[in-house]
């Protein structure tokens, strides 16, 4: 640790910069470590892993090298797994004093160019809402993992529920689009989190990962998850770019981001509405332009087939997400044995809403069963507000703590098919 002297190194006395990528520019589309054969495990290896661990590893694979977090049931293990893991790969994890600090720290780190993440649960996500809006407005990529638990408020901390859909898709003040994804199995926690990092970095946006206590704290034996070539690749500004505009209006809506250290492109990131140069502005024109840009950025992106798992054929479709997916699959299998064919749409990308894709996936379907683990039907309400649901729609829902079971769904499907 060098003692500060009054020269250009003033202020930089800490740990070796080499251990934290100074300007991480992950090259190519390859997730670091993902495309190589793992020496430790052959392609057909079996893993013993929890959802929280898988989430942590997915983050690292996606390129996350800075985490700030605050303990909260049932997300703490994500942070505890990441603490030594990040250190091993040259990253940093800091225990923050609260969730407000956690999310603002990861925004600061990401502003500095390092892909960053935090993990929390419902109450923590509530605290983080303001800063999520900051990340939207200032266009700073971050990932927030919400390991959902019984709500509202302190709720039922140690039990699973899927009742954070509303806050995730609607919780921000102002017109603040953001990415929301939901893994649908323990092992899917890995790739979906990795994907979230990729999307956040590519779209310079916050991404929320809706995991839950059931996945997070279930230890499962799984097939080694497939390698995925998602790696955050942030569009960055070249040194001394001519008349650099941080929030330049582009066709895609994505503007090259200047990373501190890059000469000639210094700017001030701002939660205030701003011009394309980042100067605060209260004008109508600037506001409209920037709102449209941030919306276009997310809506115009090609999310690919990973947006949902679509399986089977039939004129009854089950639309669900997250941990209901497993029981739904089992239920469909039993119903099929009873001669009832159904289609499954397990949505992985909740926001931005892929309305056209869902319409295509439900083409020919006459009945839709929406399955979710919360009391008020948050997912159903979201589907109704953003998507077209064909034919007859039924909701199968129950809040935590009891999981929704395959046998209940099996009976639902069979009874409905005969009604």
């Amino acid at each position: 640790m060098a003692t500060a002297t009054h020269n250009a190194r003033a202020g930089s006395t800490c740990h070796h910069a080499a251990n934290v990528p100074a300007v991480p520019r992950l090259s190519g589309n390859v997730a670091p470590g993902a495309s190589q054969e793992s020496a430790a495990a052959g392609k057909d290896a079996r893993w013993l892993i929890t959802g929280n661990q898988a989430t942590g590893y997915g983050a690292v694979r996606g390129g996350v090298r800075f985490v700030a977090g605050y303990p909260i049931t049932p997300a703490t293990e994500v942070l505890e797994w990441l603490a030594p893991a990040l250190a091993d790969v040259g990253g940093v994890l800091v225990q923050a004093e609260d969730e407000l600090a956690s999310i603002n720290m990861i925004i600061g780190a990401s502003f500095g160019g390092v892909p960053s993440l935090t993990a929390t649960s419902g109450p923590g996500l509530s605290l983080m809402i303001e800063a999520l809006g900051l990340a939207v407005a200032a266009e700073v990529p971050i990932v927030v993992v919400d390991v959902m638990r019984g709500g509202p408020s302190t709720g039922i901390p140690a039990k699973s529920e899927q009742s954070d859909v509303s806050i995730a898709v609607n919780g921000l003040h102002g017109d603040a689009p953001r990415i929301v994804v939901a893994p649908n199995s323990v092992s899917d926690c890995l790739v979906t989190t990795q994907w979230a990092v990729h999307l956040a970095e590519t779209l310079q946006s916050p991404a929320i990962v809706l995991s839950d206590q059931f996945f997070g704290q279930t230890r499962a034996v799984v097939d080694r998850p497939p390698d995925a070539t998602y790696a955050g690749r942030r569009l960055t500004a070249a040194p001394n770019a001519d008349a650099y505009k941080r929030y330049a209006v582009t066709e895609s809506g994505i503007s090259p981001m200047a990373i501190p250290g890059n000469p000639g492109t210094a700017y001030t990131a701002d939660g205030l509405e701003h011009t394309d140069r980042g100067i605060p502005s209260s004008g109508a024109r600037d506001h409209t332009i920037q709102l449209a840009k941030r919306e276009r950025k997310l809506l115009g992106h090609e999310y690919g087939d990973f947006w949902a798992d679509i399986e089977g054929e039939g004129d009854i479709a089950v639309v669900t997400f997250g941990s209901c997916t497993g029981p739904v699959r089992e239920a469909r299998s039993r119903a099929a044995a009873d001669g009832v064919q159904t289609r499954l749409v397990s949505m992985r990308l909740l926001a931005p809403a892929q309305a056209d894709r869902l319409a295509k996936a439900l083409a020919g379907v006459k009945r839709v069963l929406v399955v979710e683990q919360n009391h008020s039907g948050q997912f159903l309400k979201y589907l109704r507000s953003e998507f077209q649901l064909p034919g007859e729609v039924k909701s199968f829902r129950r809040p935590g703590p009891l999981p929704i079971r395959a046998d209940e769904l099996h009976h639902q499907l069979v009874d409905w098919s005969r009604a």
Partner: protein
Amino acid sequence: MTTATARPTVPISARDFKSDYNPIWCPGCGDYSVVLSFTRAFASLGLRPENTAVVSGIGCSSRIPAYLTSYGFHGVHGRSLAAAAGLKLARPDLTVVVASGDGDGYSIGGNHFMHACRRNVDMTYVVMDNHVYGMTKGQPSPTTEPDWNSKLSPGGTGVRTFHPLVIALAAGANFVARAFSGDPSGTANVLVEAIKTPGFSFVEILSPCVTFRPEQREWKNAVRPAPVGTTNDPARAARYIMTDDGFNLGILYRGERAPYQPPMGRGSKQPADLEKGFAI
């Protein structure tokens, strides 16, 4: 073999650290002089704009990043210390300065203030204190006298003032100083020392708000150089600061705490190596 040699860089002058944007502050605001102090301090240290970052929250003083040519981050109210810590820990190569005011820093930011002093990440925290909420037009702040009349607290808050230097020292800040905006050179010197000193450096700058506290024009006659020198003994500094009347200028405490170091492995593993822990 030829190696690319860096072109000798032209030293950056104070003027080069000032951006083209005119501050929105009321004419008369002490913060104009603070901009001057920042630019002089940065130039004096030989910093470069691209390697310097100023992080702020919300309030009049938090507007300062845009008036400098360094990288800036204008975040949400009260969280500048958190954003700055994240930035510095991710990018230890940068010089990170945090700008705040008495509302942003001591009220909503109070918790982060305490933990930032405790954590002692290497950065400099500058609070422009004018004993009022200026941006929202004249409410009491934690450093406002209990009997100051305002629309939000008629007759005064009746609540004892916050003593930021005491809190900073008690919470573990490695450098505690007070300066005055009306002495831009003196303030610049304090900022230079603050930035040079490793760990968390806290500088309170008395900066008058002529709009809502016009009597603060008298501050230039009230401030004085502190009658004590800089000490590295926290107990001695504590005894002095506890009885300080809020107008003593100078570096009151400079300690020797090592700056925060997050647990760092050697960074020798690849992500794929982490899979060993899962394989059965």
